[in-house]
């Protein structure tokens, strides 16, 4: 049909091709425009962080640095002051890592196990429990600050890094469970039955059969959880004390507590430093993220 039309009306086909090219061009112009718009702040941050304070004061915001200096980066890393201490972001980056890595690992592991139970080991009240867990995904975190502070106090974890790990694990469970459950419901029930007959128990089936199947959804969950925990400010500022603050809180303190001259270059370098790990995770695992989100059932 289409072929015949094209053959009998060459003139129209040429004009429609021209139209298509014009549309394509317009599309690219738009997309590149948007990309630039989004990349602009990053560009400004990067260039500013590489300038000296003098140059910032005298030059234009969007100009490239005349003399590239890493002084601001060095200060942000190990010299910038957060309140009274002037050790830079380094110790706080470390704090964030010490919170995020166990937090991500635990919430992912427990989420996987929860999802496995909800998807494959139906029990009385499972649906109600799952609904409640989902509710936990959408609860505004401000609501839980006070009760959680109390719980941390009782557990003797107030102001500690394990305390923050605990908080992030608990509040991550809603989403991690949802991810894994939705992934595991696509796996045929007969797989568990076959394994039961083979003599495997609850944990054996999980470790030997379900976890090895789960790479795509593990990647999704890890990226999600890492981003959530790393970027968290509210829990970090509420449940930490001097010395255990995550990098987001420290960054805020650096930017806000500078007395005298505002060191924009240091602020920018610090902000980039604080954002770098999440960026890295996306770059390394982003491909799997998309794949995992769209991953369907597992063919046996």
């Amino acid at each position, binding site marked *: 049909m289409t072929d015949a039309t094209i053959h009998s009306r060459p003139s129209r086909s040429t004009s429609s091709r021209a139209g298509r090219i014009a549309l394509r061009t317009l599309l690219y112009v738009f997309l590149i425009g948007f990309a630039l718009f989004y990349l602009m702040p990053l560009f400004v941050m990067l260039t500013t962080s590489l300038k000296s304070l003098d140059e910032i004061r005298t030059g234009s915001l969007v100009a490239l640095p005349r003399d590239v200096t890493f002084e601001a980066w060095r200060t942000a890393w190990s010299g910038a002051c957060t309140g009274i201490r002037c050790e830079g972001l380094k110790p706080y980056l470390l704090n964030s890592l010490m919170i995020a890595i166990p937090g991500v690992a635990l919430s992912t592991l427990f989420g996987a196990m929860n999802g496995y139970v909800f998807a494959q080991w139906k029990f009385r009240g499972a649906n109600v429990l799952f609904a409640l867990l989902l509710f936990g995904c959408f609860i505004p975190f401000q609501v839980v600050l006070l009760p959680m502070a109390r719980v941390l106090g009782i557990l003797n974890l107030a102001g500690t890094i394990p305390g923050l790990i605990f908080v992030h694990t608990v509040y991550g469970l809603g989403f991690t469970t949802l991810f894994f459950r939705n992934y595991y419901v696509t796996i045929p029930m007969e797989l568990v039955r076959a394994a039961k*007959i083979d003599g495997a128990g609850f944990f054996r089936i999980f470790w030997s059969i379900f976890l090895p199947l789960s790479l795509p959804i593990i990647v999704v969950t890890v990226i999600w959880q890492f981003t959530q925990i790393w970027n968290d400010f509210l829990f970090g500022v509420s449940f930490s004390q001097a010395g255990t603050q995550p990098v987001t809180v420290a960054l805020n303190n650096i930017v806000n507590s500078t007395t005298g001259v505002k060191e924009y270059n240091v602020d920018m370098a610090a902000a980039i430093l604080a954002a770098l790990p999440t960026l890295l995770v996306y770059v390394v695992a982003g491909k799997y993220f998309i794949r995992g989100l769209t991953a369907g059932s597992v063919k046996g």
Partner: protein
Amino acid sequence: MAPILDIKNLYKSYGATEILKDINVAIEPGDFLVLVGPSGCGKSTLLNCIAGLEPISGGAIHINGKDMTDVSPKDRDIAMVFQSYALYPTMTVAKNITFGMKVRGVDAATQAAKLAEVAAQLQIEPLLNRRPGQLSGGQRQRVAMGRALVRDPALFLFDEPLSNLDAKLRVEMRTEIKKLHHNLGASMVYVTHDQIEAMTLATKIVVMKGGVIQQIGTPAEIYNTPANLFVADFMGSPAMNLIPARVQQNGTGHRIEIQRVDAEPLVLEDHRPLNLPGNVIMGLRPEDIAEAGFRAGAEVQEATCLVDMVEPAGADTYVVSQLGGKQVTARLHAETSARAGQPMVMAFDLAKVSYFAPRRVSG
């Protein structure tokens, strides 16, 4: 000999819905029991109950003389092949087959020996290092069988293992399963909705409908003397002719009268000493109606019928005519002279007739 599987008064409900009602079946060692019935009649549920994958609501299950009613699946001395094969997707074929032994702590040497034995038996040696995703349907089927064989259980359970294969492969695998059963002398319970599969494989058939057993018997018993209209209609292809008829006592035998449109009633004599009511459904298989002169027997009776339709099917030709308000199919030889619209003398073998009480018309 003690039965290898003995199910007594088994009931199974999901919530308020009763799925299986008062199931009683026993099989001897070496039996090939086929559970057959339409989709949704509870065959898989019964098999899962035998496996211990579903708890039962009442009754008892004995396997190999032991009460297994409350025993977990792994300790029932069974192996199961699933409809979807249920192979472990991330494990190689070899790992799939040895997983059960590994879980049970069988030593590596024994595992390797058993794997080699089963792989040779099923001719899957070249596949051992592949993943299930890299196998064809038939190959997956073999691996699933291998996983069961390696257990060497008291009882094999199969849940429609051939239903995902194409027609040709299905027939091949059917023969192979039969051979396997013969060679192993193993006891098997096999679920299918395909009555031909049931007839070819079984030493004993259980026909089910709506969670109730309709008949238990050898394939020949089920085929020749169906217990009720459902079994008569379900087993056999083309289906048994079920013709409404009126009956009159005639000496020790009966005079059977079948109404016809635009013709005198068809009258046949059944000389067997039966006890029949006035109205019956007469069941006669297509192969028990032949062309006159092609069937011999003391109870073969001839009558002229109008041929409605002629359907050649290679080896046989099916001829349809209207009797008692039903399309009645006769299975004739391929070179029959029957022509649609023409009368023809047919031979009815009254010795093969089964009688059923008419279905009461509800409403």
